[in-house]
């Protein structure tokens, strides 16, 4: 099959040796789930492995997960490619090699990050609290060949606060992009913060986050990320100051702003490019709020219209998608639980039969008991095997369906990106309103002033001031419009990327899920078919199940069914053999019956089987000889 060959090509292309394959498997374990863009093996040392092709990613990771239990791989191989008998990925395949699609530009670039080695460190006593607090730092190790970075392998220590800073800065610089969400801050006591489990969870979450950033084609090249990963010592990114301190700063400026004085309070065009926040922008917030209210009430129609009908449609579609995704994600969880349950119960039943087998074997007085114990053992073993298979199946299922959860996270990033756009638009609209109100003020003043011969000194001065403000505001508006357009472009590009990646990721997820299910189902079928074989002697032709004629010690011969159960008793006494004889007229029971196997007088006179039990009789004949 094409897809399969595709996969194996990638595999053999990527993994030069079995060893690497093993280490691959381990890495996949530690990386805890497939990743969107860069590979699940970011911390491995394989240069090939980082092919950031969407196509190869998910099949990659799913294939990788398929490989983990070798027995399963066997099943996959056998079922999907009858020609290839080798269970090894690398060996014996010489099918035509289809080349995987790969994104043209970045075929050999990689940026792989790992987070490890959490350590407690003491806070320098800057604070008023004596004794200081402790916090945890993590070792961030990067390996890359991207030109933006100074080195190819390096490490830094960062604490969670730094990650928050990084995330905030990225949000500011990359408005309109679908930026992966950082792990939550946790509002817990410091005691919990230091617990092993919590630290490990956080470490894993950080790793996931950084890898997602590294997988984003634009953000991976950002200066912010580079500094975070590379710059030693204190993180040289400015922390966004908290609102309170900014309020204090801004309070100084506020009177000027409120009263319209712009001298000394020149509006920085760049600032316009930022969304209003903090105390300094108090006025701006007021204005934008007013504007948004005006918008809502349909008052002044904003000259800049959110023109993209298409975008609105897209937004609606995305909303639908998110809803359905969330639903599937929930059902997936339930499915996983049900799979887990059935596996557990199968295992428990198997163990119960193991105990029964042991019991019967130890207590056996009659051979029929020993036979039954042997049968039971087969069933018990098969049940335990099946239980194990369910467990493996489920572990893989979780990995595949994890994509759904991941995309729920992506949807949050999408929402952020769209709200970037909305707020940028709001800024533009606010400035436009401002412009228009300034203009009308000027008009009024000019009209009034013109009535006075010679001009009105104070009014003229006013007009000039307003004109200045107008100019500045005009610049600000242009800057805001530029920013808005920029964000729109980002949205569009990201949306395209998102759609494509989603398509590929989901395709991979489906394939992985299906291959996984099919493979394990096959394995289980094999297990049970063997037992069915082993117990086939008991089979009746569609009559009332489990009704057997009773034997007594007397001449009536019908009783147990023929089975191919024989014990290790090598002298093959007839007590250990059942044989089938067809028995005319016994329609209520079975079309077969057996000779009384316990009766010694049947020795030497073993009836041959009739009907479908040719093989049994053959075996009988052979062993009799």
């Amino acid at each position, binding site marked *: *099959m094409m*897809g399969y060959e595709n996969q194996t090509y990638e595999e053999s292309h990527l993994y030069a040796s079995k060893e690497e394959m093993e280490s691959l498997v381990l890495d996949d374990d530690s990386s805890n789930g497939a990743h969107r863009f860069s590979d699940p093996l970011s911390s491995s040392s394989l240069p090939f492995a980082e092919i950031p092709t969407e196509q190869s990613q998910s099949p990659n990771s799913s294939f990788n997960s398929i490989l983990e239990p070798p027995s399963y791989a066997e099943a996959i191989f056998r079922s*999907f490619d009858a020609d290839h008998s080798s269970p090894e990925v690398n060996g014996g395949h010489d099918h035509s090699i289809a080349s995987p699609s790969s994104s043209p530009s970045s075929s050999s670039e990689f940026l792989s990050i790992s987070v490890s080695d959490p350590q407690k460190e003491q806070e320098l006593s800057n604070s008023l609290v004596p004794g200081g607090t402790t916090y945890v730092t993590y070792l961030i190790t990067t390996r890359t060949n991207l030109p933006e970075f100074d080195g190819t392998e390096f490490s830094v220590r960062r604490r969670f606060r730094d990650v928050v800073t990084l995330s905030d800065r990225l949000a500011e610089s990359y408005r309109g992009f679908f930026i992966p969400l950082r792990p939550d801050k946790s509002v817990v006591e410091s005691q919990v913060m230091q617990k092993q489990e919590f630290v490990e969870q956080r470490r894993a979450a950080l790793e996931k986050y950084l890898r997602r950033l590294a997988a984003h084609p634009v953000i991976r090249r950002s200066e912010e990320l580079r500094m975070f990963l590379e710059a030693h010592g204190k993180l040289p990114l400015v922390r966004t100051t908290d609102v309170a301190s900014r309020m204090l700063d801004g309070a100084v400026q506020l009177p000027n702003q409120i009263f319209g004085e712009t001298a000394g309070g020149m509006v920085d065009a760049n600032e316009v490019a930022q969304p209003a926040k903090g105390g300094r922008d108090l006025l701006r917030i007021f204005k934008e709020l007013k504007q948004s209210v005006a918008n809502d009430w349909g008052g002044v129609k904003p000259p800049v219209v959110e023109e993209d009908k298409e975008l609105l449609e897209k937004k609606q579609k995305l909303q*639908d998608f998110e809803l*359905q995704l969330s*639903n*599937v994600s929930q*059902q997936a969880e339930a*499915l996983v*639980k*049900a799979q887990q*349950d*059935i596996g557990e*119960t*199968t295992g428990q*039943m198997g163990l*119960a*039969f193991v*105990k029964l087998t042991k019991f019967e074997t130890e*207590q056996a007085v009659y051979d*029929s008991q020993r*036979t*039954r114990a042997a*049968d*039971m053992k*087969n069933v018990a073993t*098969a049940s335990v095997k099946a239980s194990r298979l369910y467990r493996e199946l489920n572990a893989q299922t979780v990995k595949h369906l994890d994509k759904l959860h991941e995309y729920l996270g992506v949807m949050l990033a999408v929402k952020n990106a769209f709200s970037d756009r909305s707020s940028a638009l709001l800024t533009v609209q606010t400035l436009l309103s401002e412009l228009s109100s300034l203009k009308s003020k000027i008009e009024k003043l000019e009209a009034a002033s013109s009535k006075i011969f010679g001009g009105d000194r104070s009014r003229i001065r006013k007009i000039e001031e307003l004109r200045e403000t107008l100019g500045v505001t005009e610049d600000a508006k242009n800057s805001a419009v530029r920013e808005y357009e920029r964000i729109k472009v980002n949205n569009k590009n990201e949306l395209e990327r998102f759609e494509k990646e989603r398509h590929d990721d*989901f*395709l991979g997820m*489906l394939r992985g899920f*299906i291959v996984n*299910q099919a493979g394990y*189902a*096959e394995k289980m079928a094999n297990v*049970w*078919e063997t*037992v069915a074989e*082993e*117990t086939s002697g*008991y089979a*009746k032709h569609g009559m*009332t*199940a*489990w*009704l057997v004629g*009773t*034997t*007594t*010690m007397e001449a009536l*011969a*019908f*009783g147990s069914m023929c089975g191919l159960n024989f014990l290790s008793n090598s002298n093959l006494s007839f007590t250990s053999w059942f044989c089938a*004889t067809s028995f*005319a*007229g016994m329609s*209520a029971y079975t079309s077969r*019956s057996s000779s009384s196997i316990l009766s010694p*007088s049947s020795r030497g006179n073993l*009836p041959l089987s*009739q009907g479908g039990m040719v093989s049994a009789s053959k075996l009988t004949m052979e062993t009799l000889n």
Partner: protein
Amino acid sequence: MNTTSPRSPSSQAPFLSVSVTDPAKMGNGVQACISTKSSPKTNLPEYQGHEKIVIRRYSDFVWLHDRLFEKFKGIFIPPLPEKSTVEKFRFSAEFIEMRRQALDVFVNRIASHHELRQSDDLRIFLQADEQTMDRARFQETGIFKKKPADLIQIFKDVQSKVSDVVLGKEKPVEESTPEYEKMKSYIFELEDHLAEAQKHAYRLVKRHRELGESLSEFGKAVKLLGTCEDDALGKAFSELGAKSEIISIKLQKEAHHLLMHFEEPLKDYVRAVQSIKATIAERATAFKKQCELAETIKFKEIDLNKYRLTRSEKLAEAEREYEMLKAEGEEASRRFDTIVRLMNEEIIRFQEQKTSDMGLAFHEFAKGQAWLANGIADAWRSLLPKLEACSS
């Protein structure tokens, strides 16, 4: 082919075949129960002529069971399915089917047991008209029917005696040959093991159903998600949803199959062991009676000799009583010996029967699971070509 084994019956050997079919509700409320048709095809002389169809209710089966239990002490009477106390469940299709199957097995086991099949009660059960049957049933209830409380007490006695012997305490009126003790403790322990296995088997049925349901829900959700995707991928999702539904149905099927052909046989096994416990109790009672009579006879002998020596007038009377007691004692011994003999035969039959019953149950279990697994594998596999179409 070759049927010359001396053990294989000739084609003229008598056979009796019963089928219990067409369960139907009769009446409503607490009195309602299940009626069934028995249609024995036989050429045993008593059952001469062809098929006979009668309608019976659950309590008729109970009557038959109790009569046989009374009359054939020592034989492990085939067990009955329990009376269900949960109203709602009592008329569910599944319960009715489970019961019908169990009753069918019950009657056929009786009909194929060399001794039991000869009982008059069976004949009444299989052939008498409804009124006769009703009359017989009303007559017998209350007289022979042991109250459950009694049975429980007997079981407790037997159980405590088993443990007493194990602990080394001596109880005078209890047979305690090592072989029999072994058999008794085997039976008691077997019941525990079987009950556990059956419990898990029942749970396994439920798990199949639950997995089926959740897969069906998952499939529906996936289908909806597919509507958000483009053509090819959306179709793939839709197919996944469809297959999930198909597999869900298979799971429900297998759940039912598991219930009827694996869990129920296990349950039947448990009941059979409980039936043996009832016989063990009977044997204990018979033994006790025999011992008590022996004791009484001894005392009577002493009295007799006393009377002989004193030439008392009571001698004749005493001699008569003595003779009666001796006869009773012989009868009690005979009864006890019969029970012992029968039990020895029965235990062999039981073990053989259970080996085939379970062998078949295991086979059905494995077959069903294999069928399910293959069905699942096929269903999923059939999706892959459609997926390939998407990845261009």
